């Protein structure tokens, strides 16, 4: 398959806590044919990076970022690195890669990395947001999740969760699986066998499929998963939940709703995904936000199924579902009242 040099390139983020098997999995993935045209950016934290020594990739499409933790110190470096990769590709100075994978340091918060991909003018338009894959060590994962806030965030924002070190643990722990479901019910869990996992299982799960140039909103949202998860995570600081609305939502209401979420929740709104029945539009809108940064809604040509309800999936910390629900209802009622009052008699 030859790469279309003008087609947007999906960028996926591979994250997971220290020692959770990111590099081992990536090393195996890069040997698979589906990963042959992949550029890799590895962020190592510390003066002496080792992970890049473990990866066999062509050097011209491999960049190591070692100046600090990707999420906090060198966001601009990431944007510059991506821009440099694109320049090399455009000039024919490296493999014509059709995918980029960013392996974060084990201590990185993936949310600011997603924001960089969403907001940097030098790479916008050339890249498409791929998915977030998080590795979870089955030996130490449960203890790590209990101890490390950053580990919980890495799990919460994932589109795919990969269990690693099953060969050492013997089997996946039901308590660990329960914790993963509590933090992120919508992300399918796959297992890596000695670090090996089929590439399509983990990296072909983004909203946009560059091969078909279409969107798979249903798989992206995994809305049905959240009803089950509602019952067993009352004490978690990070929660996933879904808001479902039968009636169409006015565009003004949606705007005010998103503005208010950004204003009052900020960093606690880890991710928001949704499909919205906009009252003024025959086409549904897909929305996506990370903390206070939101994409402009993307309008689908048609509904993906007969289900015309608006569905909003929240991955949030310290944000009560009841507040989100009453906020939307109250704003909708106020907008309706204003529209009614200003309507011609």
């Amino acid at each position, binding site marked *: 398959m030859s790469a279309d040099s003008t087609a947007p390139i999906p960028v996926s983020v591979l994250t997971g806590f220290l020692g959770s098997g990111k590099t081992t999995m990536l090393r195996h993935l890069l040997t698979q044919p589906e990963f042959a045209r992949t550029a890799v950016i590895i962020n190592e934290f510390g003066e002496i990076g080792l992970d890049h020594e473990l990866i066999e990739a062509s050097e011209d499409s491999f960049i190591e970022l070692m100046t600090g933790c990707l999420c906090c110190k060198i966001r601009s470096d990431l944007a510059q690195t991506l821009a440099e990769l694109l320049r090399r590709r455009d000039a024919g100075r490296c493999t014509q890669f059709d995918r980029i994978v960013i392996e974060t340091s084990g201590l990185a918060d993936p949310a600011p990395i997603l924001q960089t991909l969403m907001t940097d003018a030098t790479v916008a338009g050339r890249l498409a947001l791929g998915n977030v894959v998080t590795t979870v060590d089955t030996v130490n994962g449960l203890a790590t999740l209990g101890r490390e806030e950053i580990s919980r965030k890495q799990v919460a924002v994932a589109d795919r969760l990969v269990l690693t070190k099953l060969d050492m643990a013997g089997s996946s722990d039901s308590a660990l699986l329960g914790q993963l479901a509590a933090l992120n019910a919508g992300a399918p869990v796959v297992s890596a066998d000695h670090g090996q996992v089929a590439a399509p299982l983990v990296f072909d799960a983004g909203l946009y499929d560059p091969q078909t*140039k279409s969107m798979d909103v249903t798989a992206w949202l995994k809305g049905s998963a959240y009803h089950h998860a509602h019952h067993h995570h009352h004490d978690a600081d990070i929660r996933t939940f879904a808001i479902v609305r039968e009636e169409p939502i006015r565009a003004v209401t949606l705007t005010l709703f998103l503005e*208010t979420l950004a204003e009052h929740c900020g960093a606690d709104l880890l991710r928001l995904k949704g499909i919205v029945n906009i009252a003024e539009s025959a086409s549904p809108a897909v929305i996506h936000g990370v903390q206070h940064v939101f994409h402009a809604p993307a309008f689908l040509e048609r509904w993906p199924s007969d289900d015309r309800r608006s569905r909003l999936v929240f991955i949030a910390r310290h944000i009560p579902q009841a507040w989100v629900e009453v906020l939307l209802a109250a704003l909708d009622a106020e907008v309706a*009242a204003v529209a009614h009052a200003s309507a011609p008699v």
Partner: protein
Amino acid sequence: MNEADRDLPRELLAESLLAWRIAGSVAREHDGTLVIDEAAKSIRIDPGEHPMFRWMVTVDGRKRGAVSLVAVLRQVREALDPGYATQRVRVAIAPLVPS
């Protein structure tokens, strides 16, 4: 507007105090005025008192207009949550899906 809708602003403020972990209770008076009690400051929110504003928010005697519930929430939180720093929504440059 039905009774449930009329009570939504009170419900929203009550849930907001819980979400922001701020002590206080919210009551709705017969004319629709909302009163926040037991909080650090005395707050009243009067509906429809001014032609330009849907709400008038009075905090410790100081009155300010609010064009919508969004503005009411902002004023109430600014009054009750000293650590609150508003964060405006930012629209991504990159499209959600490539065109």
